[in-house]
């Protein structure tokens, strides 16, 4: 029973982590590339107001996402730590964490204040690229972990003999 609960927690925690990444990355792409085109026909004032309201709504999502990322990421790392191969695995984990911290810092800075400038748009793009790198690091980490698990396992011999045979 405890095993089932732990399995469920592991799945749930990973689900939260992936789902949060999806919401943030997809939302950023939408806000950076799609929304400005959607707001095209509006006048300057209406466009600025709409962008500010959108930014306010997205800010709540991003700040909640940072909390969820840290909580679920810490739990995921705790569960998988022993399975990461020493050297390459730990290095990749470090890259992932450093990228995540940079992304959090930029995201928090981007949503400070009430004015959106061209500099903000450039940094949003930089943050998107960093998010892409963080996903790549996580993906490589998972690959390294699964490879290490398979390589470290002793070759099992499956007996074809009858179970009653001593």
């Amino acid at each position: 029973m405890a095993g089932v609960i732990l399995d469920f927690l592991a799945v749930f925690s990973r689900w939260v982590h992936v789902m949060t990444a999806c919401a943030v990355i997809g939302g950023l792409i939408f806000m950076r590339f799609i929304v400005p085109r959607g707001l095209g026909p509006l006048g300057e004032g209406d466009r600025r107001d709409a962008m500010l309201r959108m930014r306010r709504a997205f800010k709540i999502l991003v700040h909640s996402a940072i909390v969820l990322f840290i909580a679920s990421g810490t739990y995921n790392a705790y569960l998988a730590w022993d399975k990461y191969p020493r050297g390459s695995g730990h290095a990749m984990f470090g890259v992932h964490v450093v990228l995540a911290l940079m992304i959090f810092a930029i995201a928090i800075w981007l949503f400070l204040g009430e004015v959106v400038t061209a500099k903000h748009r450039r940094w949003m793009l930089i943050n998107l690229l960093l998010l892409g790198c963080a996903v790549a690091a996580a993906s490589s980490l998972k690959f390294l972990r699964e490879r290490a698990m398979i390589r470290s396992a002793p070759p099992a011999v499956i007996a074809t003999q009858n179970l009653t045979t001593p």
Partner: protein
Amino acid sequence: MDTLINGLYMVARYLHIVCTTLLVGGTLFYEMVVPIAIEDLKEEHQLSIFARARWVFRRIVWVAAITLIATGVISSAGHWAKYTASQAIRLPAPTTSTTQVSVESASPRSGWWWAAHASTGGLAVLIALFLTLGKRPPDHPIQWMRLNLVILLIVIFLATATRQVRINETDRNPARHQQPTGG
């Protein structure tokens, strides 16, 4: 050759995740954030913004849908042996020898989770394509998007569960999985 194949699986998994983020995040933003931002505008302006955003989002949905299917096929091929292998239940060896005795169960567990993930994922992609097809959106587009968002969240949960079951199976029976690790 193995390095090349493993590299292909890694790239496929990366693209699969990136395309999922485009679909899930885009749907979430379109359905939850945009309406809040334009609620004070006149109705014709609101409709115009939705239509223009849909026009741009459509290209992203199409590219993401095709890439998701292609990378999903590649990743599934990488794990196919694990999905189709029946599950072995280990019993303690009857003697002190290193021989391990296993009883084959008929249920391919991670395979069933994979089937659930693939079928609901296919459904979510179809709904996304249906929503962006044609010049006019279907009736009740926001409700459709909300439904698709829930389905997408279930799809991600099923993918995570598939992975967990696969890892548990690898832990239990590593001999079966000593092939290239796949996607």
